[in-house]
């Protein structure tokens, strides 16, 4: 396995809420809370959760658009948490992003050709920029005449292809896909997902794929982390996670995925563990396990202690007292 390409260590992102004339900090939004993840080279890593769970904030932190309040981000053995300005430039070449909304992620006043050539120019691309631009369009399945089109002259799927071409321009190693397909029509989604899959194999890319659509993430990713209210609840290989979810939140998420071909018999007996209530405010997260307010199997202990993320099996971790052997039991068994 070797050193992971991207390592997120104990990263927390808190946004201060300021009020009044003196701008005193009255509260803070805990968007991301002590998240630790590692991405191996060549892997597609999914990050799922409801809206507001902090997954986009985490992605923006990895892209260094936001500074983490605590914790460190390591890329290929280098700590990039405190780099800024020019020192960040090499990292910018190796990490790219694909954004959610293809209507807002392209500058409306730039033609596709300019969008692609600008990044090449800024990074002093050695070689013919024109050829490279056409090559990039070609990789993403667009004919060369798109060079002269403005974003508003393209469809959503075509724009997203330009967005992907832009991400590929500098031959990055890691691509952060923030909800890269969720703003597209279902039929276009499938094409873009297939394109992303092809590119990963062809160009040996690593993906950090943020999404809320479980079936998309399952299809595209090797490993998945489930986030809730800023914390990672469960991490596992994607097949393992969907076949054998350990955390009650993950189970609820998977149950909520509509079945395209429901079996009426099984449907009648299926245990609907749909969640009640709303996601609590990250301004004032619940004590103990953040999920206990909506958890069907919450215990006394969950309101007081934070369950650590512990291995259930090899490469499968969950943060729940009900699934992992408690620390006390382990200690007593060992102590005997």
């Amino acid at each position, binding site marked *: 396995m070797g050193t992971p390409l991207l390592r997120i260590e104990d990263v927390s992102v808190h946004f201060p809420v300021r009020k009044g004339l003196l701008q005193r900090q009255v509260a803070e939004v805990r968007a991301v809370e002590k998240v630790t993840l590692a991405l191996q080279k060549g892997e597609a890593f999914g990050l799922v959760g409801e809206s507001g769970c902090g997954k986009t904030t985490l992605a923006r932190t990895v892209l260094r658009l936001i500074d983490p309040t605590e914790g460190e981000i390591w890329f290929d053995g280098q700590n990039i948490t405190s780099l800024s300005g020019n020192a960040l430039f090499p990292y910018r070449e190796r990490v790219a992003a694909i*954004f959610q*909304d293809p209507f807002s*992620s392209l500058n409306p006043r730039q033609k596709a050709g300019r969008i692609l050539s600008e*990044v090449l120019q800024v990074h002093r691309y050695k070689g013919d920029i024109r050829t490279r631009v056409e090559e990039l369009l070609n990789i993403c399945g667009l004919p060369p005449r798109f060079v002269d089109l403005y974003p508003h002259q393209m*469809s959503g799927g*075509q724009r997203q292809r330009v967005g992907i071409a832009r991400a590929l321009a500098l031959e990055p190693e890691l691509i952060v896909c923030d909800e890269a397909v969720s703003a597209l029509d279902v*039929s276009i989604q499938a094409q873009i997902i297939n*394109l992303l899959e092809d590119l990963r194999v062809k160009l040996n890319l690593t993906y950090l794929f943020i999404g809320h659509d479980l079936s998309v993430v399952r299809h595209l990713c090797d490993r998945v982390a489930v986030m809730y209210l800023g914390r990672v609840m469960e991490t596992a290989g994607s097949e393992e996670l969907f076949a054998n979810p350990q955390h009650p939140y993950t189970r609820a998420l998977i149950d909520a995925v509509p079945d395209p071909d429901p079996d009426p018999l099984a449907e009648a007996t299926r245990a609907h563990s749909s969640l009640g209530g709303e996601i609590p405010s990250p301004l004032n997260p619940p004590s103990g396990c953040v999920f206990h307010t909506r958890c069907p199997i919450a215990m006394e202990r969950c309101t007081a202690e934070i369950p650590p993320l512990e291995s259930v099996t090899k490469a499968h971790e969950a943060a729940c007292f009900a699934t992992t052997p408690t620390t006390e039991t382990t200690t007593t068994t060992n102590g005997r």
Partner: protein
Amino acid sequence: MMTDATLEPIPADIPQAPKRSRMRSVFSKDRKAQFGIIVLGLFILGALLAPLIAPYDPNEMTLDMMGSPSGEHILGTDDLGRDLFSRILWGTQISLFVGVATVAISLFFGVLLGVLAGYYGGWIDMIIMRYIDLQWAFPNFIIAVYLVAVFGTGLLNVIVAIALAFLDDFARIARSMVLTLKEEQFVDAARVQGFSDIRIMVFHILPNAMAPIIVQATVSVSYAILGEASLSFLGLGVSADTPTWGLILADGRSFISQAWWLGVYPGLAIMLVVLSINFIGDALRDALDVRDADI
């Protein structure tokens, strides 16, 4: 696995950059804008050709004092026997120049301040906007009068004074545009690609913020022309021997009951130019407002 059949069909009739620009199609329909362009065009032509077509020297005095409009003096003469038509024609040069120069200066500095404040936020925003608020608290014209009173009269001082007075409008508009645009994903995308702040501001934010700024500029040109006229009227404009519309109006004020043409014609000139510019501004707003749709 996936094959190359992933391509969505690309329709053959994809617009190949529209032949007729949006600007032209708006102006070809808007009658008022056409009126504005023609009238303003005539004034600009008149200003440029003033040395050639003015029948008299604007400061040449004749014995025909306060002569009513006639074949010899088509708009009449003033109390010192100077030809009104020649004076208004020469005044057009000054008025239009003051209008354009003023707006160019205040647009440049106002947009600069507004973009810096909006993009960086924090204490930079705080300092710039408190100054802009301070200026906002006084009527533009009072500021211009005050500045001319301090620095003295003269063409350059008048331009600087009016430009400073209009600065806050541009700064405010630019800042509010930047605040919205900053949240757009293409700005995030630019930052992720490692673009410098200056590149992001100049090539990514500004081009998308220009529409309301251009519209404000046309409005400000007409206010600047009125401002120069008002300052001259109060005797705070350019020097007394330079014919400007405000000065002509001020000179004629005392004789308005005997010589109506001394008030009406310079007033009419101001009105026509200001009206034309506003019509053009309205059409520009229509043409630039919607970013994403073609007509």
